[in-house]
């Protein structure tokens, strides 16, 4: 039964994710004094791309060919680790739903993205891959420091267990270190979604979409879905650890619906960040802003060590 719920969780996320993107595109258009596309435009785009064939350059190897599927699988696996339709009482899945499992699937996703970029021998894809690696270098340590605070505080790395502790109020916002860690964590999770001003790896005008520029047709559609799923997952990661209120409802389907509404809200509201102002550069804006996030996460770690 748990597996059926898990499947529902994954499938519904894949189905709904393009709608979030569509809504944010519409909202962005309104800010830019445009009419904008229909909110279902992302579905149309993906369907159109799925019908198209694939081309590949002569310099690529099998890595390039399997990369879209691997990206999709790792994003899907990342999403499945989020305990939305199952809780601490599900014996089969609790071991799988662990912070480290999620982090390593995330690292796998990034690794495949980088390898696929280097494999194409396209200089822009190469630069894009190297930037993706650098972004990981900036974000991951902030995320891990925040999570250390939570893991030490709750004494567990299991996501269902942490969620239930925060839900019941045994551990939560009454503790300053947790509250401060949540700020830094939301920040890096936004960076992980790869939206402006942090979309350095896909920078359209500089790198012609970098790694993505090498893919087309069906491959590109699959990568598109994988990236949407990853964006939902990282925002969901924040919700599950720091705001697991959707899990308060007993019914798995209902809590899934609540979760998706929350994620959708965060996703669409990000337009207020990504619509305004230019993209950061890797050695100036990116470095400077991530130092702030690092400082916040370190503050929360210090507070935890001090015992508050």
């Amino acid at each position, binding site marked *: 039964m748990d597996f059926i719920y898990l499947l529902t969780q994954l499938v519904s996320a894949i189905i709904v994710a393009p709608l979030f993107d569509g809504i944010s595109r519409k909202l962005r258009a309104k800010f830019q004094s445009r009419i904008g596309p229909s909110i279902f435009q992302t579905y149309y785009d993906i369907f159109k791309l799925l019908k198209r064939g694939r081309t590949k350059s002569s310099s690529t190897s099998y890595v390039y060919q399997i990369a879209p599927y691997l990206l999709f699988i790792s994003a899907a696996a990342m999403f499945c680790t989020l305990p939305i339709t199952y809780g601490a009482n599900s014996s089969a899945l609790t071991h799988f739903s662990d912070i480290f499992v999620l982090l390593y699937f995330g690292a796998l996703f990034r690794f495949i993205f980088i390898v696929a970029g280097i494999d194409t021998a396209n200089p*822009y894809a190469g630069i894009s891959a190297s930037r993706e690696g650098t972004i990981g270098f900036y974000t991951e340590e902030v995320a891990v420091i925040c999570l250390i605070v939570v893991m030490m505080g709750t004494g567990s790395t299991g996501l269902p267990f942490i969620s239930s502790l925060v839900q019941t109020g045994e551990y939560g916002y009454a503790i300053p270190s947790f509250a401060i860690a949540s700020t830094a964590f939301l920040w890096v999770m936004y960076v992980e979604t790869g939206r402006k001003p942090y979309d350095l790896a896909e920078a359209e*005008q500089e790198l012609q979409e970098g790694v993505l520029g090498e893919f087309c047709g069906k491959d590109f559609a699959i990568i598109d879905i994988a990236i949407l799923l990853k964006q939902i997952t990282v925002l969901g990661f924040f919700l599950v650890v720091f705001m697991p209120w959707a899990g308060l409802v007993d019914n798995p389907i209902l809590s899934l619906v609540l979760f998706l509404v929350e994620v959708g809200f965060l996703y669409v509201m990000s337009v207020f960040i990504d619509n305004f*102002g230019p993209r950061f550069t890797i050695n100036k804006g990116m470095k400077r802003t991530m130092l702030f996030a690092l400082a916040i996460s370190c503050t929360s770690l210090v507070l935890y060590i001090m015992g508050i």
Partner: protein
Amino acid sequence: MKCDKFIEALGQRVKILEVTRQYEDQVTALVELNDLPEAVRFLYYDMGGYLSTMIPNDERSINKHYALYYALSMEGGKMFEGDEIAQDEKCFVTVKVLISPESLVFPSVTPLVPACVWYEREAYDMFGLIAEGLPDKRRLVLSDDWPDNLFPLRKDAMDYRYRPDMKEHYMEPEYDFLRPEGSGMIDVPLGPLHITADEPGHFRLYCDGDTIIDADYRLFYQHRGMEKLAENRMNYDQMGYLAERVCGICGYAHAIACIEAAEKAINLEIPARAQAIRIVCSEIERLHSHLLNIGLACEVTGNYNAFMHIFRIREYSMKLAELVTGGRKTYGNVVMGGLRRDMTGHEIKESLRILHIIETQVEEVWDAVMDDQRQMKRWKGVGILDKQVARDFSPVGPNIRGSGIKRDTRYDHPYDFFKQVKFDVAVVEGGDVFAREMVRYMELKSSVSIIRQCFELMPQTAIIVDPKFHVKPENYSLAYVEAPRGENVHWIMQGSAQKVYRWRCRAATYNNWPSLRFQFRGNTIADAALIVCSLDPCYSCTERVTVVDVRSKKSKILTHNDLKAFSQTLKNSPMKDLK
């Protein structure tokens, strides 16, 4: 008379064989071939000139020689306060040399005046004239697989419809990019087709990590053969329509420059109202071109929001163009002797209303962009054009004004109605992308004011004089217009039977490219597209499209008209007979 002072000074340096006057502010001095580099250097650096254009010409049918004309705009070096020639002494001095068709060799000026480099490379491509001592002898204009002994602009070289066979793809010679020495560098090709450049251009960036160490570029991927087309085939009214097709943005500036070159050669004064409307049109072009460029400078850094809002304002300037010329683009309005369309009082009133909207909204959006610290950080200190480099390479337009050099054709050599209009030349120190965009913003404001003044001052006269004229063969003259990207210079030598003997059209961007290399150095890859964009390079469009059916591997070439007809009616699909 104007220019005499410079000719006199030049005469003390080198031996002048002959002096001819083309117009009140244009004089040509014929010098001996070996004196050429010294003559140009003396006028450029010692007397304070900037290279406007250089025209190689095949004059074998006239005097059995090839000729080179180095046209210098005498306006002062402008490197510091007061380093400028008095307003009523500014003029154009052309240094002319004759080259015998047996030797085809001339001494290169480039080692002394770097600004000549592209012109001298082009002289070889088009005429086979070899610049002895030119440090960079690679091809510039023609493609690398062009036949060796075919020089298209020679009068006896080829019919203008002739197309040499193309080489197979794998046989194409590699272009020899100037690679800096050292190891550990990565080549990053920006182009030939890149998402931010609408026109093909290959910028090869040599990077260490994210930093650009050096760059080289190969342009001229598209050819329309316009200069060849004009020779001996078109009359002067047709020339204007051809010239405005040079560019999609500053077409009007080219049309005026071309027609005025012909008008100057026959000393034709056009009515004041026509002069005023010509200025209005070229300032409208400046409005929409600068709005386009400021918008793109935001878009290239990823700021779509600002880009979209600036384009919303740009739409008003297109509306303005519609009121003045009857079309959204300022095309098809200039003829010899004046204009084809006048403005009614109602149209002027409506234009003033739109000008007010543009003025207020530009200010609002610009303030918002300036308030955005992230945007400012992307613009400031990026792509710096050093003042001395600018002096050496004679760039034009906002590119040089952003480096603190007060160079504006409207101010240095006022033409048409500019003698009566007051405006400030926008000069900003710094030389970075921000300075160039700031210049553009200031010019937006001055353009609005110039258009208003024109409407106010323009008299109720006719807009065209009967262009009954008879051109004298072998007369030539230079006309100059400050287009949005800088000075456009057209040079026309008249031929027999009311036709053009040689037309040299130098668009603004031609003078801006050679110094780009210095602007790239030391910046990051992320800024490369922005630096190219801040130059406001000129884009032209291809006029045909090829349709290929992937399944049957058949292809078919559609003309511009076929495609347009299909887009309008959706009938007779070009794909039908492919299946």
